[in-house]
């Protein structure tokens, strides 16, 4: 059988795949990118520099950074407890971690509103405040760091830690000098995914966040409102800014990840 350059499905298959990806993914993103420059570069800058747009982007990035930091600490801690500790019901707790990914985002919003909304049984009303945004985003991003760190912790060689301990290293020293450097790439990659998810999130914050302009309105809510009032350039410019932030974060992560992998290869 003559093997074509495109492999088992031939050049037609490759063409179909590329066409599919173009129509579904590339063309819409190209449309929004070009539309964001409808009024030129100046128009783009004006659109993201408008006070409401700037406020929405600042709130989004600020809250997402807080959420990412909490995820780094708590995610690593939860992964450690799930791998190294032993207690009854561990399997249940482990399954609970995946729930935020399986749950529709609007359900996450309703679930959190039942606890922190006007009908809160504990009288903690956080509805339409920035802490509510943080809680909603912590809920939907919970699995990222935990699931990134867990497999690395399982693989981690215990002998090195024991050697360190027998040489008199304290737990804190062992953690800082042995465990943390090994976990760092996984923590970073989980943190990056959590951050990119957080800046684009809509469903889980739409009800509990309240969308108060310059207070709790996040970028995705701003985009949605601008589309509704036909301010397409404004919506497109903020969308492209979100895409750029996500792109840069993922690119930096890939570079760091690649460097860590190479270092490991050399060491091994």
């Amino acid at each position, binding site marked *: 059988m003559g093997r074509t*350059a495109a492999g088992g499905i031939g050049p037609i298959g490759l063409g179909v795949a590329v066409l599919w990806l173009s129509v579904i993914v590339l063309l819409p993103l190209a449309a929004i990118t070009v539309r964001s420059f409808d009024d030129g570069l100046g128009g783009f800058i004006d659109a993201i520099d408008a006070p409401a747009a700037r406020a929405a982007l600042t709130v989004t990035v600020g809250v997402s950074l807080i959420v990412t930091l909490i995820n780094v600490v708590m995610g690593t801690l939860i992964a450690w407890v799930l791998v190294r500790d032993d207690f009854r019901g561990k399997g249940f707790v482990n399954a609970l971690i995946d729930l935020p990914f399986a749950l529709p985002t609007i*359900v996450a919003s309703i679930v959190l509103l039942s606890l922190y909304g006007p009908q809160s049984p504990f009288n903690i009303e956080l509805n339409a405040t920035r802490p509510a945004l943080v809680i909603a985003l912590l809920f939907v991003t919970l699995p990222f760091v935990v699931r990134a760190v867990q497999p690395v912790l399982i693989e981690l060689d215990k002998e090195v830690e024991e050697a360190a301990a027998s040489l008199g290293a304290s737990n804190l020293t062992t953690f800082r000098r042995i465990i943390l450097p090994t976990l760092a790439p996984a923590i970073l990659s989980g943190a990056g995914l959590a951050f990119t998810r957080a800046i684009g999130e809509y469903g889980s914050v739409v009800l509990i966040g309240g969308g108060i302009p310059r207070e709790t309105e996040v970028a995705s809510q701003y985009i949605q409102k601008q589309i509704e009032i036909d301010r397409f350039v404004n919506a497109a410019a903020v969308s492209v800014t979100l895409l750029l932030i996500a792109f840069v974060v993922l690119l930096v992560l890939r570079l760091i990840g690649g460097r860590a992998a190479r270092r490991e290869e050399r060491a091994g």
Partner: protein
Amino acid sequence: MTPSTPARLSLRTLALGYLGILVLTPIVLILIRTFEDGLLAFWASITTPAAISALTLSLIIIAIVVPLNVVFGIVTALALVRGRFPGRGIVQAIVDLPFAVSPIVVGASLILLWGASGWLGFIDEAGFKVIFALPGMVLATIFVTLPFVVREVEPVLHEIGEEQEQAAATLGASRWQTFWRITLPAIRWGLTYGVVLTVARALGEFGAVIMVSAGVAGQSQTLTLLVHARYVDDFNVYGAYAASTLLMLLAILTLLLMTVLDRKRKTT
């Protein structure tokens, strides 16, 4: 690192306390709120005409999206694994792109491409409505679910290699026969896993779909839009809880299915 018992216990308490407050409490609370008036009230609330129509629309969208994702997902995976063509890295990156794009940006992009004032606005003007109609909701759902089938089938194709397919070809099998008899049976569990992820995400998608839906109750609402509309427009908090619980039960079902499939995938 072997922390003392008190240290280990406090780490465990911290991790479990965090999960308890963030995830478990709100979910238990919403279950209590849903079922405190009995199963009948819950049943009545999820079988109203609007609810039935929402469930039907969600199922219609899934029925269109899943076959398309299966066919084009397999073609794309085959092209990526078996093909050696320039720009493979770019195609790989495009497949991952939907995961990094905010659902609202997806919706906005589709409006700016297919909407009345979009690049392909002539289709809308010719009388075929894409945006604020079913085709738009389908396009939005395909966009956000596109990576699943490709990413689940790809590693299996890598693993099985090409020897069997080549042997079949040498024995005179046509490309179709080889695909149906050799390739498809080999990738079936990976494919099923990808389909489950696609269905779960399609059921749960909110942001991208609400942007392109006409939002008419009992006509253009999916289950997630119903949750939102009941809470925001109808002030029907109980109805929102009940519909959320239905979606939550479906999500838990998905998680169970994934666990079962994961075992199958690893043993066969």
